[in-house]
């Protein structure tokens, strides 16, 4: 019930009853709205009858109920939101991410004039007529040279191509929007996979300890020693040699990246579980004789979730960077299925780098926005969710 509602009802009753003190009245009203009677059923009383029936003494007894109810608290969700929105940076980050998602998923629905793989063939064909003369100056014939272009490549931004076209005459804006889908989707998938592996292995290591912990942590140590990029380059070549469609190569690579980079999350989860295991409520769960599964999944994992969410958000940014770097190195999707990294790859050409900012600039800016946005939101979430940071 809303507080002002209480006040309104109280005002209405001010005229009805006189002589009864203010607190007693408020109290009677509250207990009248919701009492717990002897038959163990919730009863909703009519306010008028309650007020006349209840004695002042009863009301006094319930006074602390009243006091408790006039105080409003924040629900756990509200507290998290309040702390999150206290920082301006996290709001900026949130806006950036929401804008990017709208751009990538809603954009192609609205901007339908070009498909991302569609080549603009509207280029005007122009001919230059050069008369070929003999020694006396008579025109023998005209040499016809095709000087225009058949597909509209390297178009400058104009009304039909707001960001121009690339060297194959594909619309940059359309490619940017669809490329974002690929980049974001791949990073989300790999982050979820990393988290899954991390929770399973970290949870096992933290909960059981001993030999299991030792084995898993040593595997983590080995994984942390592996140099990421050189191995990915080798795997990229292997994937190509295996004759797998180049369109899917980036998925294989990111999958492999997932396999070698869950160790950070696993360490985080293990550390959290080790400290949570010492908490008295876990000892209480042990004393209650709960099964191991219940203890891990009902009591431990939900309490690791906040840290996990923060970790996930922060690693989204780095996954986007990984994807972009791989694509830039030419290990990403082939050109026609653009991802942001692939689009920047075209800046390898000095001509494009110098003269066509409209081709490589926008995907670069998108990557910066995405990484910054995820990092801002991650930092904001950490402040909001981590009770140790509570101010």
């Amino acid at each position, binding site marked *: *019930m*809303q507080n002002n509602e209480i006040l309104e009802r109280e005002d209405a009753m001010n005229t009805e009853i006189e002589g009864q*003190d*203010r*607190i007693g009245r408020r109290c009677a009203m509250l207990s009248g709205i*919701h009492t717990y009677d002897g038959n163990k059923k919730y009863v909703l009383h009519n306010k008028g009858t309650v007020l006349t029936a209840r004695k002042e003494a009863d009301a*006094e007894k319930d*006074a*602390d109920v009243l*006091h*408790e*109810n*006039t*105080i*409003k*608290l*924040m*629900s756990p969700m*509200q*507290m998290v939101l*309040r*702390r999150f929105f206290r920082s301006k940076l996290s709001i900026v980050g949130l806006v950036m991410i929401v804008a990017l998602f709208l751009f990538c998923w809603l954009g192609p629905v609205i901007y339908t004039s070009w498909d991302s793989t569609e080549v603009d063939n509207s280029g005007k064909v122009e001919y230059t007529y050069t008369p070929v003369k003999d020694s006396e100056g008579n025109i023998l014939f005209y040499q016809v040279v095709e000087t225009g272009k058949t597909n509209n490549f390297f178009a400058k931004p104009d009304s039909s191509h707001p960001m121009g076209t690339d060297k194959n005459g594909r619309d940059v804006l359309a490619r940017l929007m669809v490329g974002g889908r690929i980049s974001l989707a791949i990073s989300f998938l790999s982050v979820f996979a990393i988290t899954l592996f991390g929770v399973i292995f970290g949870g096992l290591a933290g909960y059981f300890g001993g030999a299991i912990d030792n084995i898993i942590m040593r595997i983590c140590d080995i994984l942390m020693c592996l140099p990421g990029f050189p191995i990915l380059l080798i795997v990229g070549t292997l994937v190509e040699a295996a004759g797998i469609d180049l369109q899917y190569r980036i998925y294989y690579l990111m999958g492999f990246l997932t396999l070698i980079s869950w160790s950070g999350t696993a360490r985080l989860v293990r550390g959290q579980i080790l400290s949570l295991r010492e908490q008295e409520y876990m000892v209480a769960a042990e004393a209650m004789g709960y099964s191991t599964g219940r203890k891990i999944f009902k009591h431990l994992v939900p309490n690791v979730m906040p840290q996990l969410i923060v970790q996930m958000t922060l690693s989204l940014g780095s996954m986007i960077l990984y994807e972009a770097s791989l694509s830039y190195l030419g290990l990403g999707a082939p050109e026609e299925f653009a991802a942001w990294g692939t689009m920047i790859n075209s800046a390898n050409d000095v001509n494009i780098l110098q003269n066509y900012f409209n081709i490589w600039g926008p995907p670069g800016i998108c990557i910066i926005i995405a990484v910054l946005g995820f990092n801002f939101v991650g930092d904001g979430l950490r402040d909001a969710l981590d009770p140790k940071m509570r*101010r």
Partner: protein
Amino acid sequence: MAEKHYLTGKEIRKIAKANKKAMMALEKEKWKKKPESEFTAQMKDDKNILEIDNLNTYFFTDQGVVKAVNGVSFNIPLHATVGIVGESGCGKSVTSMSVMRLLQGPQGQIASGSIRFKSSDFKRDEKGNPIPTGTHNLDGTPKYYMEEKVYDIAKMPMNEIHRIRGRQISMIFQEPMTSLNPVFTIGNQLDEVTFIHQPGATKESAKAKSLEMLNLVGIAAPERVYNSYPHELSGGMRQRVMISMALACNPRLIIADEPTTALDVTIQAQILELLRDLKDKMDGSIMLITHDLGVIAEMADYVVVMYAGRVIEMGTVREIFHNPMHPYTVGLQKSKPTMQSDTDTLFNIPGNVPNPINMPKHCFFKERCDKCIKKCSGEYPGMIKVSDTHFVACHLYDEEEQNG
């Protein structure tokens, strides 16, 4: 039903907006540079060393303003021990933090009131340097002219507070485990205090002073402790070191915030013995904050009982223990099981300490009080004088109630 006790988004935004405005104003005031005349004051009674007058300290939280200290007034006479007793959340620690100006900003702020402190500081020239007399102390450090001044700590800007904090008012904390820096030796930390607050101190004089202090607090091997790190010492030893640190500058006031709560009973007995011993030796007053009535009875000369941010009763220790007036003080004494009592059920005060946000207008103890009268639903009771030293805030002792 389930959600109704939660704030709505609109209310949360409203609170946040109001908090921000109030906090900014107070925070700005706190750091503003002022001429000295604005924060000097006059003591009401010259026998007091500290006078707290209508102090209000608020915490601006997301759920509303917590009036942690709500119009508290009491005095600390010279050479006396004043015990402040109350349960957690009653504002006793916040009062001491306000005196030290250690409140966590920007949420915690002194909203109004004054804390007058009679300080004895070095006389300073225009540049702010102390003026030497030309003579020397026994250990070779120069002597300086001193002067007595009364400062209003509540109005003092933060950049002037070092004149008082540490040198003239020092503090002993509850947690001896965490209040020493683990990476420096005890000697290092003790010497530092002398260096900061004693102009002209040399390495040797500081060490001599530190060893003397360690000796004073009953540490048998001061040299060994001087060279050890905090983790090498036990809790009781660390608390002794903390006490020696607090004493190092001959402060006029020591604030002991639950000095024995974290210690074992037998160690607590040692520390209490030590404090009682020091009380006679030192030239200053002690403000002892505790929830343990037994500790208060053994240590204090005057007692201030606090409840929900207000002083509800104060008097000499005998008045409070032999003639408690306020129902809360009575209940508190009855509900503590003692070695002497032999009852079957303990007396208990029903209910809980009220939530500090949105306190009612009437007496805060009304909901838990067993002697509640009709008048209790009215205004908050004022302080009623029982004797020259004994005051109580309860409607039961209003003049008309007594007569009628």
